Each structure stands twice: as C-alpha cells, then as structure tokens.
C-alpha cells in the first residue's frame, strides 16, 4: 500500500499517493513517474508519463516552494495523519503578542528612525535598509510600541533577521 499525502496549492487540495518507485496517483488518477535530482541540487527532473519537466523545489516557512516554468507555487504537503491531527486541533492559530519586524532582504542598515519604547503608528517608517543600491523602508505593520531594537545604522543584516518588535501599547 502506498503513502498518501494531502497537498494544497492556493486552497485547492490534491490527494497524492505514492504507489511505488515509478507510479503515483493524483486525485485517483495513476501516473507513470521517473523522478530524479540534478547535480545534487534542489533541481528536479521529472518524466511524468513521458513528459519531461524540471523544477526548483525547496522548503521555506513550512511550505514547499516549486518554481516551475517561471511560476512559483507555494505548496503544503501533509500526510494523512498530520492532516487529521491538524483538523482535530481546529482552526488557524490566532496571532498574539509582539509582531517581529524582519528584514525582507539582506543588506546594510542605512538609518534607524525609532528607538525602544517609542510609540509608532501603522505605516511609520522604522528602519531603512539598502542592498544593491536599492533602498527599502520598513514600516510599522500596526500601531504599537517598539521593543528589543537590535540593529543600528551601518550594520549588516541577513534576510529574515528580526530587527525589532512592535507590541501592544503598555
């Protein structure tokens, strides 16, 4: 018996079953598959019923990102058991607490326009980053108070690095 997965793209669910090395079903339809990695990279070559495709597939933020013919798909893959557990736990997680302000790109901090305990309004510019001669203004995603400010002008930051938090007014 094969392994069953529930795979979701843009709220649309696909039931994918891996039968053996060369067969998968999707929503009950059987496909002949020859699947291999290229150059030990996250680049995959697939022959699906003879049709040759290639995609760049990598994990990011709990999803699988599939870059296929210039189109990026964010895909959730769960095995049946996982899916059941999630259903039992019920609903989406509600965000609480402070909101982290993350660097959307790697770069240099050009200026920091806020300080700890400062009150900001949604849309206020907080930090200006520069990378590859392109400046990016990070704005407050909500009203609140700045805390745990961790960068200053002149420093380098990585992509997704948390620069500070914006929390409920204390």
């Amino acid at each position, binding site marked *: 018996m094969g392994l069953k997965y529930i795979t979701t*793209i843009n709220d649309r669910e696909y039931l994918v079953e891996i039968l053996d090395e060369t067969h998968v079903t*999707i929503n009950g339809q059987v496909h002949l598959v020859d699947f291999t990695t290229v150059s030990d990279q996250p680049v995959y070559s697939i022959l699906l019923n003879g049709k040759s495709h290639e995609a760049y*597939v990598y994990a990011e933020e709990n999803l699988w990102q599939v870059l296929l013919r210039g189109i990026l798909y964010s895909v959730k893959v769960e095995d049946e058991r996982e899916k059941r557990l999630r259903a039992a736990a019920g609903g989406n997680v509600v965000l609480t607490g402070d909101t982290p302000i993350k660097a959307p790109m790697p770069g240099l901090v050009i200026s920091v326009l806020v300080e700890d305990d400062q009150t900001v309004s949604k849309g206020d510019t907080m930090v200006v980053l520069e990378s590859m001669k392109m400046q990016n203004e990070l704005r407050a995603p909500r009203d609140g108070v700045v805390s745990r400010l961790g960068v200053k002008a002149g420093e380098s930051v990585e992509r997704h690095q948390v620069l500070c938090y914006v929390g409920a007014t204390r």
Partner: protein
Amino acid sequence: MFNKVLIANRGEIAVRIIRACRELGMETVAVFSEADRHALHVRYADEAYLLGPAISRESYLRGDKIIEIALKTGVGGIHPGYGFLAERADFAQAVIDAGLAFIGPKPSAIAAMGDKAIARMTVAKAGVPVVPGTEGEGNLRDEDLLVAAQQIGFPVLIKATAGGGGKGMREVRELKEMPALLTAARREAEAAFGDGNVYLEKVIEGARHIEVQIMADQHGNVIHLGERECSIQRRHQKLVEEAPSPFVGDDEDFRNTLGSVAVRAAQAVNYVNAGTIEFLVDSNKNFYFLEMNTRLQVEHPVTELATGVDIVREQIRISRGRQMRLTQEDITMKGWALECRINAEDPHHGFLPSTGKITHLNPPTGPGVRVDTGVYSGFSITPYYDSLISKLIVWGENRAEAVLRMRRALEEYRIVGVSTNIPFHQKLMNSTRFQAGQFDTRFVEERFSTQYGEEDETTPELAAILATLVAHESLQQSAQIVRRNERDTSNWKWVGRWERLQR
C-alpha cells in the same frame, strides 16, 4: 599607441572589456574591492590589484588610487565601464592629467551632458527637440509655474529639482488641481532632499524609450549605429532592450531622422568615443531629447548583434587615436537582437535584492545566444553593488524568432542559490502584448501583472506532484537518519557492553 588597459570597474562589464582587450592582443589590469577577490574580472585579467573595502566609495570610486595603480603598472589607458567613475568629468580629467588615455569622451563633453539644464540648452540650440518644461530655468515660484504649465499644455509632471526615485513627483491633469499638487510635491521634496524646489515637464503619453548609439573618432567622424528600444522598465530601471525598435520598425525615414538628430546632439559637444542619446517618443512619432549617456551602455550588446560592430573594441581603437574603419554607409541592422537583464532579485517577493552563494549555474548556450556575465558557480553575490549579474542576449532572423530563442534560453538558464528575475522575463516573453511590440515605458508597472493565475490546469497538478515527491523523499531520508542513529546508539551501547566485558 598603448597596449595595456586598466579597467576601473567590476562585474560583467569589466569582464566584457577584458575580453575585448584580450581579443585585440592587449594586456589588462583589473582593480577590485575586498569583496571581489574571487570575481571573474580578477581571475580573467593579466594583473589585479586591491583597491580597498567593499563599500564603493572606498574602492571602485577611489579615482586617485586607480590612477596610482595605472601609473605603477604602466598602462596606457583606463576604461571606466558604466556607473562608478564613468561619468565623472573630474576623474576623466585626472586620468588625462596623469598622461593616460581616458577611454571615453572628453571631460568637457561629460560635464556638458552631465548637467541636465546645460545639456537641454546645448542640444536645443543644435536644433534637437527637448521635452518641453522648465528644467534649467532656475527656481520658479508657483505663480510662474502655473503660467508655464498652460504654455506647455497638460498633462504635466511636477518634479523635484534635487530629486530622483519618484520623490516629490506629481502628475497634473488640469489647471485647477495644480496648486494643491504643487504644495504636496514641494513638501515631499523638502522632506526627502531638504530642497523644496520643483520644475515642470510635459507628460509624454504612451511614451516609448528609444535611444541611439553613436560613435565618434578623434578625427571628426561621427556615425550612429541605429536605435535601441528600452521601454520595458520597472521603476526607471531598464529590464529588456532590443535593436531595432519594434516601434520604429520598417520606417527607415524615421530611423534616419532619429540617427541624424543624435549625431547632431553629439556634434554639439564635440563628442568623441561611444555615447547614447536617449529619446522619449510618443505614439505620433514626436520625439524629445531625454539625456545623453556619455559612456558605454549596459545594453550595448543588442546593437552589436544587430549591426555586427564590436562597440568596445571600437572604443579602444578610437582612444588609441585610430580613425574609424566604418562610415555611416557601412552600418545596417540585420535581424533582431533582444537582451534580458538578469538581476539577483526575487520577482515573487517584490523584486527585493537577493544575495548569497551561487551553488549551481548552467547558462544557456547554442546558436544565437550570448551571455555576458561576471558570476559563476561557487561565486557569492554580495549586497554592495548593483543586482545585475548577467545579461542574456539573443539574435534571431526577425523579432518573432528572437523571442522564441529568448524563451528557450531563459528556460535553459539555471541559477541556484540566489533568486533571479528570470521568471519575470519568462512571463514577459509569453505575453502577447510584448510579442506584438505593444508597450510603453509604463507597461510593466501598469499592465503587466506578476500574479500568476492564467496558467493551464495541469501545471498546478504537476507542482503538487513534484512537491509531494520531494517532501516524501525528504521524509524517507530523515527516517533513515533516525534509523541510523538508533543503530549507532545501540552500537555504542554494544561497545560499552563489550568494554565492560573486557574489564
């Protein structure tokens, strides 16, 4: 006549120039920042010297150090490429003062074209049309601007004198909304640049960006190499260029008009070497001088492929004092050339810059494909310089063939480790409006969606299968690691038991 050139630049253009020198049998000297020890221009040059830290102003903008290295290594000329010091008249002058050839125009021409107001005045005097507006007329008050706007005719654009990047810019469609928009523009300009002065410019509706490549030698010969169209832009950054222009098309008269006007503009400043006159062209073929780039352009290869002229090689010949071998009659465009700028930026996340190590790279090859690049597999993209990592240029017998070839080349291009805008180009090449040549400079921002929804049904299914197979494989592997660890643990236990038995 010199036989050794210093290239005061980095990235693909430094590599491009080194190649031209090598193919002329000339020696090359590269300069590099601490971030660029592994860069291709350092590897390909005959000699390479460290300038300083990564930040441009401490390395690639250190004209003094560059001239010092040039003198020490005995080069005869310096090629500035584009960007960095390429359009700095003071640097060009310093190079000449050091007794070296500056491979570019005279400092006076750089200076004349570098000041927008002077440039507009100079070319207007030579009979070249300029975009109607008040730029260069000094800092006018609101009352004067309201009068001027009516003379220019609506719609007009309010632009910050100190400006750039769209800050302090407002489009005015009729007189009555103008006072409020002027106040807003001045306030924004003041906040952004500490200078609230603004000027007016006529809005060219449906404008296309068409530019003309010119070449001039030291013996008074000036020719043009036809036009390029660069209307595919995003935030005033060119993304795709082509030669000829699909808008000019078969209209040889219009082509010749643009060309001879460009030659006149160049002659107005006694121009020498390669340069580009940029025009805005409206749908009625009215054209307006925008600016002159007094240097090699990023997009020069499309002209090279369409005309067969090696522009960089010609630049070096000219700066060595040679007479151009080409006359205007020798220049014809054959077929069609397209260029896609491959930038390290993520088209799926707002085109934000992407840095990191390129872990795998497979460039497209084969007939009609040219790649100009400064990166390779194993090279790290840093945040210090601009995001252009490669130019993919194709030639076809006609535009349709060039587009098909570009599609196959984009499909073949594999870059793993950093995000690139290749997906953007793939989508663009599939767009029927692009294929039909129907676009203006606002096309990408206003009419070209980066949302992907209109694909056929089978593609998401394929993505679902791929993601599931990769997820499955990754689960199997982690299961194996767990199993191996289990065994390791028991081995370890077993060894422990065995050791105890030995005692």
